[in-house]
């Protein structure tokens, strides 16, 4: 697609041209460490797996991913560079995709840098490496889901704080949509099929399914189609709000 490559390259290099990348990666690694060892009781569990590590990923992403995605479009709109960008011979879909892929690869880099966890567990015991790999793949796809939501929210406003707050709220709803906090709201009046449908949007449900070690095609399709849907909404939001 026209412009995807150029935008991807600029965005990805952009993370490392500013302190954003280093701050994000440090905080991410620090938090995963804290959660795994203190909150997740990695040692006390006495099991050679990374369950304690992966369990907290949705909750970490809930706040860290919107911090990455909030600037994607809001910053361009605020500084007026969106006008420059969209008057280049690039397609809107190409730009949307380029920005998303750069951010996704960046979170992938942060995720890969947690490899000492894997080494630790491999050193201490005899883990099922297939399950751990599945956990990483699931976590990466889930990060993509959060990012796509965040990118769309960022396209709705020129204010990064608003983009952040909106993203956290929407991401939270998708995270817990299988939990009573959301389902109770619908259970009283909505038809059962709708309640089931809402529950099936839960990131937790799909992510947990993958971290069990079974990469079910349905879970992957869920995240991929969710990403596609939100990026489509992202493109519409950019198109509609361009003039404002």
């Amino acid at each position, binding site marked *: 697609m026209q412009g995807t490559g150029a935008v991807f390259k*600029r965005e990805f290099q952009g993370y490392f*041209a500013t302190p954003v990348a280093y701050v994000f990666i440090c905080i991410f690694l620090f938090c995963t460490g804290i959660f795994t060892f203190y909150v997740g009781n990695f040692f006390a569990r006495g099991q050679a797996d990374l369950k304690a590590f992966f369990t907290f990923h949705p909750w970490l992403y809930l706040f860290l991913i919107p911090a990455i995605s909030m600037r994607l479009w809001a910053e361009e709109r605020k500084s007026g560079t969106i006008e420059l960008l969209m008057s*280049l011979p690039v397609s809107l879909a190409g730009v949307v995709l380029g920005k998303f892929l750069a951010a996704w690869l960046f979170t992938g880099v942060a995720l890969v840098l947690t490899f000492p966890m894997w080494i630790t567990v491999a050193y201490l015991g005899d883990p099922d490496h297939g399950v751990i790999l599945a956990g990483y793949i699931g976590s990466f796809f889930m990060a993509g889901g959060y990012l796509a939501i965040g990118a769309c929210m960022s396209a709705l406003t020129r204010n990064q704080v608003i983009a952040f707050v909106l993203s956290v709220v929407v991401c939270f709803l998708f995270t817990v949509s299988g939990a009573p906090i959301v389902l109770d709201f619908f259970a009283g009046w909505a038809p059962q099929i709708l309640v089931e449908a809402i529950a099936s949007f839960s990131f937790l449900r799909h992510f947990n399914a993958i971290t069990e070690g079974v990469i079910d095609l349905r879970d992957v399709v869920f995240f991929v189609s969710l990403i596609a849907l939100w990026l489509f909404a992202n493109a519409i939001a950019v198109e509609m709000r*361009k003039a404002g």
Partner: protein
Amino acid sequence: MSLLEIRGLSKRFGPITAVDNVSFKVDQGEVLGFLGPNGAGKSTTMKMIAGFISPSAGGVSVLGEDVAEAPLKTKAAIGYLPEGAPTYPDMTPRGFLEFVADARGLKGPERKARIDYAVEHVDIGHVLDQSIDTLSKGYKRRVGLAQAILHDPPVLILDEPTDGLDPNQKHEVRELIRRMAPGKAIVISTHILEEVEAVCTRAIVIARGRLLAEGHPVEGGWQLGEHFAEPGRLDAVFRAITMGAPSSAQEAA
């Protein structure tokens, strides 16, 4: 065939008509001064030419191609300097120009040659590896200009190219425009009337979205609509034209 043709262009934002049925043509070798008070609809018109926003009515052709039908083709033929010359502050001018070259599909030796050409023309060689954030306003503007002329476009749309520059910098930018003029169709918007006399071969005046007058240099001055202005006296004529303009907003009410 005109390189740039605008036909009955209109843009409405809700109840406000920002641009109201504007038509004009620009041929090769022409530098068209696009004049009007602030808020007259100059930038909106230029955004529509650049393909950033779409018109409510009317159309724009660049090299015979319609902006709405073949946006990638027309965007490839246009060099556009948006109002305020936005650039990415975290990048260096080199990185920024390389990004624009990539987005415009330039490759290999041609890419390098075009970047060198643009850098040389706006004279930013010595700040190429400094972050744009740290550059002065004049240099930021030059980086924006470099981006616009990078692909040697046949049509140049420059929205207030000299706004906020000091007199020396203004002079340089005007020199640059004059140098590039023969092979291109150039539109510059401005509310500085000395600029019109300095670089333009033709001028149009708009106010409240409407085209009010067209003008060109004549023997001993400028003819702008029905008014004649001696050198340096365009201001008075401009005021006479724009202050007496009927308000399209009032008519709509």
